């Protein structure tokens, strides 16, 4: 079982976390026309990278989303950061 660092609660077991998506995916503006390819890419296309990844996770016990950098091969966790700070 992995240990993830919630920026608010500290190191906690992975069972308390939900994967929320790869970082950097932007919802298309659906008031305008969105072509099927773009919408499909938004819904389903994942980069699924090998090695260093940046992802959004939710710590379900505090309900906070945050960004986590980790290695998808070694499972090493490099860093985690509140998304609030990323946004500002």
């Amino acid at each position, binding site marked *: *079982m992995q240990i993830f660092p919630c920026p608010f609660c500290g190191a906690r077991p992975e069972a308390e976390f939900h994967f929320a998506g790869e970082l950097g995916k932007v919802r*298309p503006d659906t*008031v305008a026309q969105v072509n*099927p390819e773009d919408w499909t890419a938004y*819904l389903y296309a994942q980069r699924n990278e090998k090695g260093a990844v940046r992802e959004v996770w939710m710590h379900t016990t505090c309900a906070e*989303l945050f960004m986590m950098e980790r290695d998808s091969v070694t*499972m090493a966790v490099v860093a985690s950061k509140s998304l609030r700070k990323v946004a500002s």
Partner: protein
Amino acid sequence: MTSHRTARTALIDRSKPLNFIFDGKPFQGVAGDTIASALLANGVRVMGRSFKYHRPRGPWGAWVDDPNAIMSVSLDGRAFPNCPATTTPLVGGMQVRAVNAFPSAQFDIKGGLDLFRRWLGAGFYYKTFMWPDWHLFEPLIRKMAGLGDVSRDVLDGYCSDQVYDDCDVLVIGGGAAGLVAAHSAAVAGQGVVLVDDHPVLGGGLHQRTMVEGIIPAEWIAAQVAGIAAAGGRILRATTAFGIYDHRMVALAENGPFGTAPRLHRMRAGRIILATGALDRPVTFANNDRPGIMSIDAAGEYLARYGVCVGRRIAMVSNNSNADAAQKMLREAGADVLRIDPSKGAFCAVGGKHLKGIAQNGTRTAADTILASGGMTPLVHLWRHAGGKLDWCADRQAFFPAAAPEGMCVIGAANGTFDLASALDEARAAVAGEQILRAATTYRLSPLWPEPGSKGRQWIDFQHDVTLKDIELAARENYVSVEHLKRYTTLGMASDQGKTSNMAGLAAMAAIKGKPLPEVGTTTFRPPFVPVPLALYHGGHGGQLWSPLKRLALEPQHRAAGAAMGEYGGWLRPGWYGGGNAPELIHGEALMARASAGIVDASPLGKIEVMGPDAEAFVNFIYYNTIKTLKPGHIRYGFMLTEGGVIMDDGVIARLDRNRFVISCSSSHVDTVRSHLEAWRQDGNDLDRIFIHDVTQHWATITIAGPKAREIVRGLGLDLDLSAGAFAHMTLREAQFDGAPLRVAWVSFTGDTSFELSIRRTGVAGLWDAVTAIGKDAGAGPIGIEALSILRAEKGYIMVGKDTDGETMPHDLGFGIPRLKKKTAFLGDRSLHSEKASAAGRKSLVGLTVPFGAVALPTGAHVVEGKRSAGYVTSSYDSPTLGHPIALGLVENGAARLGESVEVWHLGAIRHATICAACFFDAEGERLHAE
């Protein structure tokens, strides 16, 4: 049978005899014995039968590397299947029975199966039992296959503790290298845990006469005392059976026989592996006979249990380790002869009773053959953690190469078979120095299976995989080791290839003419040894597995005779009264239509969304337009996934400009809350929207029926309840008994209906008042079952029951926001995909059956020929209407009203007619009745 117990100093207590039964006969062992050592001491050789051919088998190993001697053990009336005889401690009073043998391992009636071996080669069942249908043969084959029988009795109290623990350094293996590593690390001030799977520490040291100048027992005691004095912990009889991410090591700590092992989830800062090595079998004709065992096993039986396994022993070895074993066995009184395997092909002679060994036409009499094909480092845990392996030609073995982070390996597990070098490695590992594998005095000449050689030569003893099976697999192109394994079942026995894998890989390498390392190994996966499922399960049963949510009014429901059941994670009244459930449920439904039903609706979700940006947020979250909702008003709507599929439905109330209450399905509250949080935090100003799940803070009582208004009036609230003043789909705030009360006029039954929500702590008084007033009006409590019927009569859906993973709102007749809503909302673009816009989508309909027919089964398919065109989602006998009703999702259903369809269920076809998904008061007159 005379005793094979010698006078040699061993780890047993000869003053404590233990009586036990094996295959119906009485035997005696001593404290400290395993089942296998006690039987060997008594001269018993045959301890089991092989899986396929039912060949007689005795132990090959003395510990976890034995695939042959597996027992069903009863103790004090409790039965435990599949106990390895070599690792199960002997307890007085045990009744032991060999598995896969009847009536005994010695005389097994299926022993004759071996005569049919010609037809039972690798993959025989894939080839033989295909026509006409495998399923005809499967029950018989399943009955014949397998090991011990699982008792149907539940073992009370057989429950594993699960412990979370951590340490600076975890040392796995309590042999010489492990003891020194743990001692050095503890003295250096590190928090050390040492685990070893034997009850007595020392690993292979007990076979030696001296260690660093003193006898092994004293040397071990000194290390143990040193570890303890420096604050280290030692877990004996504890197997590290898996290494998982971030250096979490799973440990199974065995207690007394018959108790569930304890699971430690040990998080280690560093892991030092000192797991040792196994002696591997030699492949020769009839090498599976009882009385053929590993040289190391013979050493262990003698050193630990004082058992000399044979009197006249033939020793076949390709390596230098045999010399010490030969000396020890001779000192114990055995005749030991060496057979040089390089001098020509050899085979075992004899059946159940071994007679000797023949080489180049010369037969040597022997009652025991000890074999060693070389040492194989135990690298299982290393591989679990992602460590790499290298092939060492000198040692003819795979041994550890590049290390995973925070892990190192020392001693025999590292291919370091010399004691002094192993101890140096242990000290270097603790000091953090680089471990350089030292030169070794260990010598061996390669000794691997020779394809094409004569006789039946066993590779996997338990599963009866022979060299010929490997050759067959190669001919049929099952060449990759992973294919070879699955086709022949090589390495799939309960020892998971500890004895068989190397020989199997070497055989395949020889057949294909490749170097062994190019063939590669199969994947090493946890658990290292079989562990009971109870270990994973732990205490997570019953209430602890999935704790039920409890109603504040549970005592009142129980007092009213409620049949409580789990509905969406809550313990709720299904119906009231102790009699015939269908009659009671129908009675409750009829009462609700005639006067009113009183429902404890507290589990209904109540998620408050507040703040200046709350309006825009809920308008985005909902399929329906919410921003036009006025304070005090309520709207029914859907939440969709981005894929456009309905995630939840329910009403949303606007309390004031910046405050909404989302009333989601009882069982979806946690999901909806996470969903809202995830979107709230996606680009919004988090200081302008707040989400609070107050489901458990407020209790809700719903009064539904023609007399609902009269009953609520009886509460004397300061509220004008007339239809003109209090409209359907509005909400008023009032006071009951000095506490805030929210009164919502919404209906889930089609009748006038008020939801009264009050602080959880104040709900008992409200319930007493409502039920007392209701009683005078002929109304009373109804359970969730009656409510389900009432809502289905009206065609009100339950998400997840009347919708599936494809259902979009326009499939339910809610198509307007899809076409008209101007602002962005979740799932909007998906509602216009090719599939979402396709003709013939499944839509919600009602289904009726011919007069007098019984209700359709839920899940039955509407069929067109052999094709499913939809299915029944809800089906009830409607007491209100006096006939069955059903809801379903049917292709193009909304356009097929009045059409007769065929409904298939379990092979039978019935007829039904499609109708609108509303069976009761379609005009809504009752809903708005004064």
